[in-house]
Structures are given as structure tokens and as C-alpha cells.
């Protein structure tokens, strides 16, 4: 699915989206609500300029349209791995984007992420994983790092990693694994516009992903360990 098709499917009542290369932003109509849309296509690397630009859209939405829901449609293969980005402090730019999304949430903007194509590592952390909820299309792809780089960092042979990536859920890429671990709230399939409308109307609250990971038996330790550290007497 390309971004145009996705937007038409999500917003049958209409959307006004400006495309600028791999980046797009605008608004869409859902019932009587206007939703701010912010996204990328083509599996773009997120570098310092793009992270800064996305943060700017979030800030403009908070300033000019208080309370307007924000839908993130970020298609990324991760942070741009370059010396220049590191030289300029890309982690600070990613953190800024995350802080702006958190500001929007605290100011009452509903924030929803949809992984519709690819979501990788730092680009995912600073965007959809910071939303109130993150959903996914069932054929989308989520991962942390390409296997050759993983092999070099972990010193585990590439062949071993390739074998593991077939069936080990905490290791293997895939949206179903992320759903079971609680990071993906649910899949959107069939009538995507209805999925979006339902998500916009569902209640929000604190971060429940650990609890979902436990309920779905994809992440058994995180919830219990965090609860113990929070509440154990010392």
C-alpha cells in the first residue's frame, strides 16, 4: 500500500495532505473531528532535519489547534546512521521529537501511531512508540537492526541469527511479536476508517504495555519486575 492509498482508505470523508518527497503532513476528517496527520513514506531514514521538522509540526498543532488528535503514519528504516548526524547530536533531535509528542499528550491531544509499512529502532522509539497507542497493519514490518550489524555487535554468527529470526519471538522481527509483547495495541484490518474512528474514541490512560505483554504471554517478566521495583519495601 502506498501513502496516498492509505490516506484515502483512512479518511473516506476527505483529507488534505501535502507531500514533500518522503515527508507528508496535513489533516483528515473523521466524523466531526479533524485529525492532524504526520508521516513519512519510502522507508525513509530519520536524520536530524526530518526529526526536527516532525517536531515542528507537532508544536504547531499544539499551539494552533489545541486538543486536535495527531495520527503518526511514520514509515522508517530507523535513524540515519551517519557521522554527520551523530556529529550534530541526532539523539538530541530524536529526544526533542519525543518530548514534543509527550507535550501534545499532556495537553490533551490524542496521539495514535500506525505502523503501516516499516518501523525500525530509533525512528520508531521517537515517534509511534511514544504515542498513546500504536497500532499496525498486519503486513507491516518492525525490527531493531539489520542482521549483519547485529552479528557484529553481538559477536553471534550471522547464520545463527538468521535461524533465530525465524521463530524466536523476542528476537525475530514482526508485528505479531510486538503485539504479543504489548507494544502494538492491535491490528487494523478491513475497514481502516472504522478502526481509526474506534481508536480515537477509546479511553486513554497510563502506559499499559507491560500489562498487555503479560496478558498476551509475549513478555512475562517486565510487568512483575517493574511492579516489584516500584513497590518493594527497602
Amino acid at each position, binding site marked *: 500500500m502506498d501513502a496516498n492509498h492509505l490516506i484515502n482508505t483512512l479518511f473516506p470523508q476527505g483529507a488534505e495532505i501535502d507531500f514533500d518527497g518522503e515527508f507528508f503532513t496535513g489533516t483528515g476528517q473523521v466524523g466531526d473531528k479533524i485529525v492532524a496527520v504526520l508521516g513519512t513514506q519510502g522507508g525513509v531514514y530519520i536524520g*536530524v532535519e526530518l526529526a*526536527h521538522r516532525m517536531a515542528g509540526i507537532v*508544536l504547531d498543532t499544539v*499551539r494552533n489547534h489545541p486538543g486536535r488528535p495527531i495520527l503518526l503514519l511514520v514509515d522508517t528504516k530507523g535513524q540515519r*546512521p*551517519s*557521522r*554527520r548526524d*551523530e*556529529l*550534530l*547530536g*541526532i*539523539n*538530541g*533531535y*530524536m*529526544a526533542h521529537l*519525543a*518530548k*514534543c509528542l*509527550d*507535550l501534545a499528550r*499532556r495537553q490533551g491531544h490524542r496521539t495514535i501511531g500506525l505502523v503501516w509499512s516499516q518501523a525500525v*529502532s*530509533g525512528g520508531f*522509539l521517537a515517534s509511534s*512508540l*511514544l504515542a498513546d497507542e500504536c497500532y499496525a497493519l498486519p503486513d507491516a514490518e518492525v*525490527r*531493531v537492526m539489520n542482521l*549483519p*550489524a*547485529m552479528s*557484529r*555487535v*553481538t559477536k553471534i554468527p550471522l547464520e545463527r541469527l538468521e535461524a*533465530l529470526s525465524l521463530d524466536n*519471538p*523476542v*528476537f525475530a*522481527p514482526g508485528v505479531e*511479536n*510486538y503485539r504479543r*509483547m*504489548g*507494544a502494538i495495541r492491535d491490528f487494523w484490518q478491513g475497514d481502516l476508517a472504522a478502526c481509526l474512528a474506534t481508536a480515537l474514541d477509546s479511553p486513554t490512560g*497510563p*502506559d499499559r*504495555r507491560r500489562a498487555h505483554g503479560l496478558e498476551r504471554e509475549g513478555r*512475562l*517478566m*517486565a*510487568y512483575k*519486575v*517493574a511492579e*516489584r*521495583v*516500584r513497590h518493594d519495601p*527497602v
Partner: protein
Amino acid sequence: MSSYYEASARERLLGLLDEGSFQEILPPSARISSPHLRQLDTPAAFDDGIIVGKGLLDGKPVLAAAQEGGFMGGAVGEVHGAKLTGLLERALDEKPAAVLLLVESGGVRLHEANAGLIAVSEIMRAILAVRAAGIPVFVLDGGQFGCFGGMGIASRLCDAVVMSEEGRLGLSGPEVIETTMGVEEFDSRDRALVWRTLGGKHRYLLGEAAGIVPDAIAAFRDAAIGLLRQAQAPDLSLAAMQAEHRRLANRLERFGQCRDAIDIWRSLGIEEPAGLPLLEIPEFVARTQDRRA
């Protein structure tokens, strides 16, 4: 003077906090370790590479965590991350004067990559929740593995980062960039290049780090006490984010064309920029006074 760089996470924590004040939560005797590593025939640790607890700093109650680079480079797995998130959320209940994060981490632990990535995002949400509750979160970065990946992002969500020159801070580590993009993009074996690109001096001049200290546990302790004494309620307002947005735009405008840290230092108006890596910290601070971005 006891080196922070050479010390273990426990030595750093005990040296940083007021003597005898540290109380660990879920200590190694609780035998909480990663369930995923043994599937890969990788040794586990009974604290999963992170120590969390409470103590006093300058007589004030704080919560503190220290990542152990000696265990898997301090990387964040499911249990490691949950301990840090749990500690941050404990701050919401206990309302300490601050939370101190003694970071040393390569980022997500790739052996349990999915659980680690999600754990980092939970840490990020928890840091922002703690700050929104009015409690400052301070980061100390001076360990052998530096602070990379998701922990590099998480660190910049906090109120302030204090570094030594030896502590590095970034997102993609040099080895990852070299493997992904080629050695001509980033030669990870060129130590001088790595340090001047990612090390404490450049981060301090760029404004990514609030303070820089010599490599000594006592120096980090003094800096942490300084931050605590000057601490104000975290400002997460729209105006604060807009100001940060302008600072970051300004950085792109001023330095976006620079090829090397030395070019950036030169355009900051620092004399003899190529000599900065050789300077001791007091001399470095004096030389660069009023020149930071």
C-alpha cells in the same frame, strides 16, 4: 582520585551517594535475571546489568540507577529495562529530590531485541512522567561503553546530562555506522575521530551536555550535588519546547555544513580548536567559556 571510567556500576553508585546511604532494590540475591539469554547460551547476571535503589545525596533523598557496562555493554533487555522503569515510577510515589541515572549502555540488547526496544520506550515514557510530576532526572555519563541507542535518546529526555570526556553520547555507535554504511562513512577504529565526535567535550560545546567533569567519581558527585542544589521544577511547557526547537534549528543552520567537530569548534570562535582534545578539563572549560553553542 578514583576513576569513574574504570569503576564498576556499584563502585560508582556507592562513591556518588552519601556514604552508607545506598539501599538496593531487587539486589542480586533476589536472583532476577533475563529469561532470554540462556536460550542463546549466553551467561546471565543476577542483576541483569543494572543496580537500582535509593539513597541520599548531599543529605537529600534520591532514587538512583547504575548500568553495568561490564555485563553486555549495559544493554537494555526486558528485565534490565523493567528495573529502570519501575525505579522511575517509584519516584512518582516517593517524590525524591531527584532521580540519578548513571548510564552506560550500548542501547537495546540485541539478544532480546524486541523486548529491549519496547523496554526503552517504557523508560522514555517513565522519564517524562517523572519530570511532568515535578521531579528532576539527571544523567551521569562517563563509562567505558558510553551511552548509545535508545539510551542516548532517553538521556536527552532528562533535565541535564553531565559527562566526562571519556563518556560518549550518541545514537548509532561507530561500529554500527561502519557496518551499515561502510568504513569511509565512519572508521570505528579511529579513536581520535570517535572521541571528538561523540565524547564529552564536543557534547558540552554543542549544548547536549550541561556539564563536563574530569574522570573521577568525586568529580561526578560534586557535579550531581551542584545540579541538585540548583534544581528547578522541570519545564515541559510549550514555550520550553519552542525554545528548544529554535536552539536545534540554530544548530542545523550554524553547523549543518561542518564536516568535523573541529570545524564546529572553529566556527564557535574557539582559538586553536585542534588542540582541545589535549586539554585537561579545567583548562578546557576556561578556554571555551562563553563559546558554547
